[in-house]
């Protein structure tokens, strides 16, 4: 991890922006069992109809290619626990491929049916936008009972952290609807021994307008900065939280967090540019056709060149935090020394995306 960090630092000093990944994110499925109001992934909100996940053997192949490029992996979706092979995939990633840091991002609704996963993951990230079931049910587009069961599942999983050696993190999306209950989410996490990260809702890859003009939002972020300085278990560096407060531009290094789609396509250099489909990025590299990460990476680089500088095409926290930490080594060191929550979080967990 530190080797990659240092290598990237030297690359940047040579004006090379094609950085080695800190962590790869593999969307094991585009399907989801919830219907979140803010979701922009895979057609957003209607993704239950997405194509089926890859067969187990093909998904294993993708994991093996990723492993040749990084030892830190996020598995996400859609909802990854809807993938029928998820238990076997996690087991394969951890036991056979020996990913050093394995993180699973889930909505938590199916978690209790996957207890065997808990000892295999290093970090479990669960979305938790509100602890008021009625509010959350509204956000996820499901009945109140579903929201209640998710909260119960989080409480249940939190109890296994020490026993199974994983860290449980909540990721709360801040929107005008969830902002009034954000403090309660933070209190809930503190009470149950969870780390928490906050990210603003995006619309069209940009912060939702209502947040950009919300004094309440700015006040809350400033409060988070204070609380973090006082030891609250809040993920995200102070630099990142400051950026969130006013939505300031930052120098983005998207290849630190490469994305692999459910069918094996590699989004290069980043998801927003790939989606833009205007010649700056694309997904013609499929890891099913590759055996080594470096080959795929080099092909993508030769097709699309260096990741752009000065990009303000999106404002997404999953790119912001690793980019900030890469470009500000002293800030990273300070975070690590000064804030205990950051030590638990590590560089590779700043991208709950």
């Amino acid at each position, binding site marked *: 991890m530190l080797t990659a960090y240092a290598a990237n630092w030297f690359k940047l000093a040579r004006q090379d922006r094609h950085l080695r990944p800190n962590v790869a994110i593999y969307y094991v499925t585009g399907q989801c069992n919830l219907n979140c109001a803010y979701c922009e992934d895979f057609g957003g909100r209607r993704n239950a109809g997405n194509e089926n996940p890859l067969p187990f053997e093909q998904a294993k192949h993708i994991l093996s290619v990723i492993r040749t490029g990084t030892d830190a992996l996020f598995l996400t979706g859609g909802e990854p626990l809807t993938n029928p092979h998820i238990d076997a995939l996690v087991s394969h990633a951890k036991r056979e491929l020996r990913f050093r840091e394995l993180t699973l991002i889930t909505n938590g609704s199916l978690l209790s049916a996957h207890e065997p996963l808990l000892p295999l993951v290093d970090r479990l990230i669960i979305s938790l936008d509100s602890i008021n079931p009625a509010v959350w049910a509204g956000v996820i587009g499901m009945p109140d009972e579903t929201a209640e069961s998710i909260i119960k599942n989080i409480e249940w999983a939190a109890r296994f952290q020490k026993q199974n050696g994983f860290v449980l993190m909540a990721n709360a999306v801040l929107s005008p609807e969830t902002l009034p209950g954000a403090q309660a989410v933070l209190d809930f996490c503190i009470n149950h021994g969870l780390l928490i990260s906050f990210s603003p809702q995006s619309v069209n890859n940009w912060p939702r*307008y209502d947040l*950009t*003009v919300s004094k309440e939002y700015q006040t809350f972020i400033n409060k988070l900065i204070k609380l973090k300085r006082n030891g609250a278990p809040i993920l995200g560096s102070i630099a990142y939280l400051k950026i969130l407060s*006013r939505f300031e531009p930052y120098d983005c290094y998207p290849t630190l967090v490469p994305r692999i789609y459910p069918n094996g396509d590699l989004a290069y250099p980043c998801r927003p540019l790939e989606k*833009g489909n*205007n010649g700056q990025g694309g997904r013609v590299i499929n890891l099913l056709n590759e055996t080594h990460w470096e080959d795929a990476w080099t092909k993508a680089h030769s097709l699309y060149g260096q990741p752009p*500088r000065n990009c303000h095409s999106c404002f997404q926290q999953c790119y912001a935090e690793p980019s900030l930490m890469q470009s500000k080594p002293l800030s990273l060191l300070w975070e690590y020394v000064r804030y205990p929550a950051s030590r638990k979080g590590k560089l590779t967990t700043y991208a709950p995306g």
Partner: protein
Amino acid sequence: MPQADPIIIGGGVAGLSAALHLAERGLKPLVLEADPQFIGGRLAGKGNLEINSWQFPLEHGVHGIWSPYRNLQAMLARHNLRPVFVPAQEELWIYREMGVVRSAPVGNAIRYSWFPAPLHYLQLFLSPRFLLTIDIRDWLRLFHVWSVLIMAVGIDPFGEDQPMEGMMLGETIRKWSPALRGFFTGLARNGLSTHAEEIPLAGFLAFLRFYTILRRDTWVFSYLPNDGGTDVCQPLSSRIQELGGQIRLGVKVVRLERAGNGWAVIADQDGIIVRFTSDHVILATDSPAAAAIIRNSFPAEAEGLSFPHGMANAVIRIWFDRQPKPGPEAGIFTGEFSLHNFFWLERIYAPYRAWNKATGGSAIEAHIYGPPEVLEQPDALLLTNAIMEIYQAYPELRGHLISQHLQRNAATHTLPSLGPRGTHLGIETPWQGLFCAGDWVRDPLPAFFLERACATGIKAANAVLTSCGKEPWTLVDYLPPEPFVGWIQSLMVKGRRRIREQKKNNPKI
């Protein structure tokens, strides 16, 4: 409360922004656009041009979307219309003196300077190519440059309503050394789209404040992946219509008349005079058109009013059958060039990328902002000179010309300035129910061009909404200055206030 749906004169970014914000609040705005074909004003697409069987989109000229364009981006994103931009990679300063051409990349040094604002330009002096471009005269005159930059920190012409009457950039920088004068006039000319002799100092200082001197990251910008019509104006127009607004093309407004408590808008549509009525009218045309409508409508009151100049320019596009040497996709020409800036289109726009991929060719767009005697040259002369100048900067392209195209834009581009106090119309006008919007409107907003058009459009919409008892929109704040420059600014503001008080108490000072 008056509930008649408002009329918006002008379908540029200001008019479309106003219309969208009104439509989102449930009103049914009617947008009247003079152009018979294209919505969007100076950001509109202009049809296609065919070169060797390839279609290339025409437009007014390349536009940058700068990171401080926060209201424009918020508006587009709210409606899922914000395209994925093409980030600017680097800008090249090409300088020619005594027939010698030198160049230095400058954009990233300014954006990513190690020095905090307002010292960030010092990063340029760490670049060997920049140092080779300047000479001893520039070192000796650095203080003059610095004094103007500091002036921009301490004086906020728009915010303070400080017109600095009679003060022009050309006069202010006359004592500067040639290269640095060339560099900053190049920046100003590209930012303000005219030559230094015509740029009011107030406009230049406001330009520096908004785009560069208060924060390093304000110089971060991107391009649209296609022409402005395709990426912004047509989607905005469709959205307005989805929300119940109407857009009518080819309606050229002639004048306004009082009609009861509201207004009658008299327009020419295909040679027929038509009349529209409403309680509220937003005048969102460019400055020259606004001046004409106001003068036709209120001849007596309009006599004392001043409107910012509209400026003409020429856009030259040249196609080559090979690529130039690798380098920045855009930049500025200064010194002995008649061209003022350039953009390698195959590195920016999707249609040119596709052509480049298929043929290996390249295409450059260059702008000429004056002076008038240059713009008055015949097409053939203007094009010939442009091609020769491009060969001077990129000699490897000699003998590889495929085609060229000259587009002359009418004098509609706003020269940012403040008229004498009380003579320059703001969003609220002396006439009840008539509001103005556009990049020419007097307003304390720090913003320029597209962002100013959008933000004044929102403010004009807010004036109508308030009048109708509806909730106005909140504008997205601009980012504050970096801490160091913010501290200098507060010191200078305090100092100026103290001097004013002393002068007030003792007029002899």
